[in-house]
């Protein structure tokens, strides 16, 4: 069966992914800026310049999202990424959870009860 591709949706999805990634990078930059402020390694003037640049970037991203109607797409990409990261971190922290999940899946599956061989 051929895969049907909707060009409009593809563009929207791709742009959503790019904006979501830029947002994440912006947040990392903001955290770095805050760390530097706490370490007192930035002057007042540098803080103002950095803050203005980050504010402009954030504003530009909001405009792109609104103009292209991709707010929901970006939100959905970010939620998806959050879930993947949460899941990976959770399983790395609690390997026992894997075993539990498998066990839970196997437990009480009435569809698999074999009656005729009893």
């Amino acid at each position, binding site marked *: 069966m051929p895969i049907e591709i909707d060009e409009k949706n593809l563009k929207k999805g791709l742009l959503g992914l790019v904006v979501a990634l830029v947002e994440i990078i912006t947040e990392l930059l903001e955290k770095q*800026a805050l760390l530097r*402020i706490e370490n007192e390694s930035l002057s007042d003037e540098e803080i103002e310049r*950095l803050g203005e*640049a980050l504010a402009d970037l*954030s504003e530009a991203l909001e405009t792109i999202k609104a103009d292209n109607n991709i707010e929901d797409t970006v939100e959905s990409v970010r939620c998806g990424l959050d879930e993947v990261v949460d899941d990976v971190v959770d399983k790395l922290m609690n390997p026992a959870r894997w075993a539990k999940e498998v066990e839970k899946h196997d437990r009480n599956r009435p*569809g698999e009860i074999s*009656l005729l061989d*009893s």
Partner: protein
Amino acid sequence: MTETDQARYLYLIANTEEERSLGDVGLGDSPVYTIVFQDIAAVVHASKPEPEPAKNEEQAKQWILNHNYVIDKATENFNTVLPFSFGCLARGDDKTIKRWLQKNYGLYKRELERLKNSAEYSIQIFYDPKILEKQIIETIPELKEIDQKIETMPKGKAYIFKKKFELGLKQAVSDHLASMGREFGKLIKENSIQTIIEEKIPYVPEKYAGKKVMVAFSCLVAQENVDRFGQSLEKINKREEFAVRFTGPWAPFNFVDLKGNIEDET
């Protein structure tokens, strides 16, 4: 007709010695009845051996409601039951089911006894982020100070400090919720025989729009404890920043343990 030409759709296993009909209350108005072995019984309807797919979504929904209706009705009649998930079909006739009950009698009887006079309840605790944030800002002077100073700062600095404020507030809310979650969890555990933390909440009523889910539990609660349990939850519900959704009693779907190894996850 051989036993492989037939099947029985399974609803549940109950404590009863009585062979009886529960009426035409099954999927597609099928007659539902008990198949007894000693003092336990499977509640079933006679079905074709191949699963019949629903014609449309509406019919599928109706079947699921029928399935749950039979479980509710059987719970009224027989007290505690061991419910089956929707869509469980066993190939064979009444004799096959009887042999299966005979083979697993000890297991099912033990579970029915263990779950006797108890029921499953679902608890979801929501919080109102706006009220909670307001309360938290009042208790953390550093956050309050940043919040007040932002207005007087130039654009760039204000942006950075707004981010600092947001991150600090987010962390404080998360710490507060974790601490309250432990407190509520302890309270719920004290009043339950078993508890399971639910990781996914499929449906949130309109009434809780604007609120966020803090934690959700499925609890197995003894009948004698239900009132006390409800009162404890009401105390949480009365707090301005929290709301509790407490539903049940349900058949103990999450607590039937046919392998003897359910662990308390809290």
